[in-house]
């Protein structure tokens, strides 16, 4: 069984400090929903509001339509997986997994049976009598998930549970988490500062900054059509150019970014407030959207000079300088993109790949 969650105008204030600024969103039952943002953006506070460790200063947290104010964490249909997992070191694996049953007064035999079932689910059959310290990082991770699932919660909350693992294991666990979520069909709410995790696993993502939800959408929308400068600069790599809007007909915009001929980009009426002629703007072009011009003259073309190159095997990350501005350029290493380091190189990008937004705070690298 799954329940939907809605946050209605949720504020969390610690004295003068506003940790969560009017959060408003609905998470559907069975959804894999991520909160993505830098540390200190309020995502963990929001998670604690849902799990019941923090009461919102104002607003409502509803689970399955019920207002959760005054309902303690032990009475909510949520299970939280902590960043450090918080397994009980003095208990065996089976006793860890069966803890939620133990506190509900379930007898020993039933507890053991359920623990064995869950060990089966997480592919650690017959390991119930081991100690926590005998397991590897990935196995502990799975035990924490099994423990959270022991009493069949409606919602699983995960607080950066993969951050302690090494890169390979982290990537493996992403796939595994997503598979477990599909298998049990629960609502997963996932907190992370790692955009890769958010983009690969989530149905939808809420990007947060300084307590505010900047944008909610699926991975593709967040990456391809960011609606604020923060989202554009935080999610993925991006080149940002400061410019002025020359014209905007609702379909196309002309922008002067100080690199010769004005650029033409698509207007994104869905994305935030529209820009009018004369407005300052940030023009975002992703490194993979920048290309070396094949023709002498193409749309959005400008001259640049080679600065440096980082070679990553399959990709080449090149820094070019255009009129004093360093731009990152990612090219597939297919042998077709030779760059003359000693002569000006013409670059361009397609109009639909440039995103013009109102100037706003940029994520610090």
């Amino acid at each position, binding site marked *: 069984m799954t329940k939907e969650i809605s946050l209605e105008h949720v504020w969390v204030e610690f004295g003068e400090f506003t940790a969560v600024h009017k959060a408003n969103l609905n998470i559907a039952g069975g959804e894999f929903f991520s909160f993505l943002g830098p540390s200190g953006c309020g995502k963990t506070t929001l998670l604690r509001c849902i799990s019941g460790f923090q009461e919102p200063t104002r607003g409502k947290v509803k689970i399955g339509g019920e207002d959760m104010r005054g309902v303690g964490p032990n*009475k909510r249909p949520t299970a939280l997986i902590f960043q450090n997992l918080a397994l009980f070191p003095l208990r065996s694996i089976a006793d860890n997994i069966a803890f939620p049953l133990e*506190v509900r007064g379930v007898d020993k035999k039933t507890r053991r049976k359920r623990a064995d079932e869950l060990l089966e689910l997480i592919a650690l059959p017959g390991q119930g009598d081991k100690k926590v310290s005998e397991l590897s990082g990935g196995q502990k991770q799975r035990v924490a998930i099994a423990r959270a699932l022991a009493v069949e919660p409606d919602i699983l909350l995960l607080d950066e549970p993969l951050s302690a693992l090494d890169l390979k294991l982290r990537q493996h666990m992403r796939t595994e988490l997503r598979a477990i979520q599909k298998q049990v069909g629960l609502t997963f709410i996932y907190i992370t500062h790692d955009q890769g995790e958010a983009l690969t696993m989530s149905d939808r993502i809420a990007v947060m900054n300084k307590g505010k939800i900047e944008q909610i959408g699926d991975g593709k929308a967040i990456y391809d059509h960011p609606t604020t400068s923060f989202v554009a600069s935080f999610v993925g790599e991006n080149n940002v150019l400061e410019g002025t809007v020359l014209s905007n007909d609702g379909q196309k915009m002309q922008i002067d970014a100080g690199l010769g001929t004005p650029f033409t980009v698509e207007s994104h009426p869905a994305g935030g407030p529209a820009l009018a002629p004369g407005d300052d703007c940030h023009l975002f072009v992703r490194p993979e959207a920048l290309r070396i011009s094949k023709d002498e003259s193409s749309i959005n073309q400008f001259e640049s000079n080679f600065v440096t190159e980082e070679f990553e095997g399959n990709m080449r990350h090149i820094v070019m300088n255009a009129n004093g501005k360093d731009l990152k350029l990612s090219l597939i290493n297919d042998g077709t993109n030779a760059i003359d380091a000693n002569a000006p190189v013409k670059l361009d990008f397609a109009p639909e790949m440039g995103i013009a937004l109102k100037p706003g705070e940029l994520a610090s690298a």
Partner: protein
Amino acid sequence: MRDLFYDLVRRNGMAVSIYLMLAVSIWVFLLIILPQLTMLDYSFRFNLPPAKIGGPEDVYTLEQYRYFFQGSGASDGINTLDIGILFKTLFAAVFVTVFDLIICYPVAFVLAKSSAGAKARLLVLALIVPYWINEILRAFAFRILFGATGVINETGMGLGLWDTPIDFIREDVALYAGLAYAYILLMIFPLYNAIESLDRNQIEAARDMGANWWQVHAKVVIPYAKPGIASGMTMVFMLTSGALAAPQILGGPSNLWFTQLVYQWFNSGGNWPRGSAYAMVLLIVCIALVLLVMRLFKVSIGEIKQ
């Protein structure tokens, strides 16, 4: 021992290592083991006038221990008085220890987990300050507090809770209160240390999984803090059963503490061998009791020293 010494030399250099080894050896052998061995030796001797010491009558005997068990009466009698006092002392010490645990655990938990740093330090200071005052003065303060015209009786009677002054001294309330108070810090600090290192997430995880507050403590905090609890209880129990000043000052007229018996044999009785035997009995019974309880609760000595 040799490895330990080389390890010390490697870390601290020769001079410091020699000093450390000497200081620790002197501390352990000269100040602890040697006097105890002498006491043990005394306890197996007759109480002889100085002139006869070293003479033909100065031989080893179990007489002093026999006296503790059988008294001065017939050889099949039992020294119910002294054995009774020993058990009463042990029982009272256990009571005081458990009482201290009950009042210190919440304090230690709050100190370790709830307060912010600066406030916690202030609380700890408030706990320590009373210990700047001499133990005997504190005992007398309790005597005044619990006296017939003391604050407690005055308040109680003023509120109409009771009509005539209650003799807290005779009822041993003052003694138990004084003893419980005397070693409270030795309970709080080991508990605090143990609980402080517990990951906060463990408590929250237990809460999140449906445990109520009682279950959080019973299933997560107390098992984790067990070595600290054992350490605190051992210290309070040993010191309470070996206390002398508080029972002297706060004990009722009919109530003797076992240490007072030891003191009497050494002092007014002038019988050092018997005093030694009594002290040995107390020491051995206390250690045996502590080890028994530790085995019962599956705590090892190795865990305590962490």
